[in-house]
């Protein structure tokens, strides 16, 4: 069976999440590997969410926010950009393929872009294969449970 990556999406409420809804409303199909967490702003994303997501078995993490300058909270995504850039460098130096982590600015009207990004990113992560470095291997539980 072909490897089906698990991809975590973290999307801001006002742009990317709405854009993802638009992709649905316009019936654009894209791979079902993405599971989205909705946060109010991309700046809400704590870098540790991303480290943790990889530990919990994510093969890729996609963060979506408003375009710089269009943030619902004015400047949130400008902070996010810096913080997530550092997160990416840390992942890379720790030995995680940087291609597994992606930040995209997708506005509420860019349903098309959302679908396109998900397709492309899913393919990219699929080609990288399973992410095993950070992943916590679940210990087998005793029979009784």
């Amino acid at each position, binding site marked *: 069976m072909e490897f089906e990556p698990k991809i975590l999406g973290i999307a801001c409420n006002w742009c990317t999440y709405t854009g993802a809804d638009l992709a649905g409303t316009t019936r654009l199909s894209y791979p079902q590997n993405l599971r989205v967490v909705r946060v109010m702003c991309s700046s809400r994303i704590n870098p540790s969410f991303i480290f943790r997501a990889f530990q919990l078995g994510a093969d890729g993490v996609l963060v979506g926010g408003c375009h710089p300058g269009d943030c619902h909270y004015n400047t949130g995504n400008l902070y996010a950009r810096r913080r997530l850039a550092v997160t990416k*460098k840390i992942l890379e130096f720790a030995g995680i393929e940087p291609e597994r982590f992606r930040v995209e600015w997708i506005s509420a009207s860019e349903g098309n872009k959302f679908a396109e990004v998900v397709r492309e990113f899913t393919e990219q992560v699929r080609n990288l294969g399973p992410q095993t470095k950070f992943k916590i291997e679940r210990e087998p539980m005793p029979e009784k449970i």
Partner: protein
Amino acid sequence: MSINFKHIEDKLKTEAKKLLEQGKVSIVLAYGKGYDDHHPMPYVARNAADVGNIVFNEFCTANLARYLVRYPRGTKIAIAVKAADSRAVIQLIQEDKIKRENLVVLGIPVSGMKNSKTGEIIDSKTTCGLYNPVLYDILLGKEVHGKSVISPYDVLAEYEKMDKDARWDFWKKELDKCIRCYACRKACPMCYCDPCFIDQNKPKWGEKSPESHGNLMYHLTRFHHLAGRCIDCGECSRACPVNIPLYLFHKKVAKECEEMFGQVAGMKIEDKPTLVNFRVEDSDKILE
């Protein structure tokens, strides 16, 4: 380039005495005698009589900036700083943990310090490699001329060119050694959170037991928290009882921050810490 440690010690004593006698400061953070000459300790002089206990030699490596946040806000403090230590002071001022006007900074230009545990010379391999303090009110001794031959980031080349799988193997092996004694964060002048995020139960950011994944979570997040703030004094690595080369990761993050944001931690009082700052013209390229 020889440093006259005795001379520095004498000047340190003289200045400390003056400051305490004139009531300009209530404490002087300096170094004192340890259980032998090779193991001096951080020392707090509270009155002129204490000053006699101050020592300074090549083993006085501890970054005293770590202690600044221990005293109530507004305490007048004199602190002896070497190059990297002064950057920590600047960074703490930037972060408003201490106020410039409450400090008398006694700068010590120095090179060739030695690790009291191993006797190894400390250079830009494990620290920022500066000789002269960036910030001081009184300079004890003469500025050291010249520059370290190697840049503080040279040591990274070997790891940067490693294959990513090899790099992961390297870090996994290193971080697996961690026993979670938290000496790194306690020795770090910039790690002043108490409780630290990893001590939190709600949320629980990572496993508390010293296993690979909890260790990874603790260290990676700590690297992120110190991004743009680490002043490369190397204290975390020297404090580590199991020799994890934490300085490598910190240097790497510092290097990337410098390249992306054009700002070096702890160099200018008026800077804003890079990760709680932004420029509209930051490029999206940094995310690639």
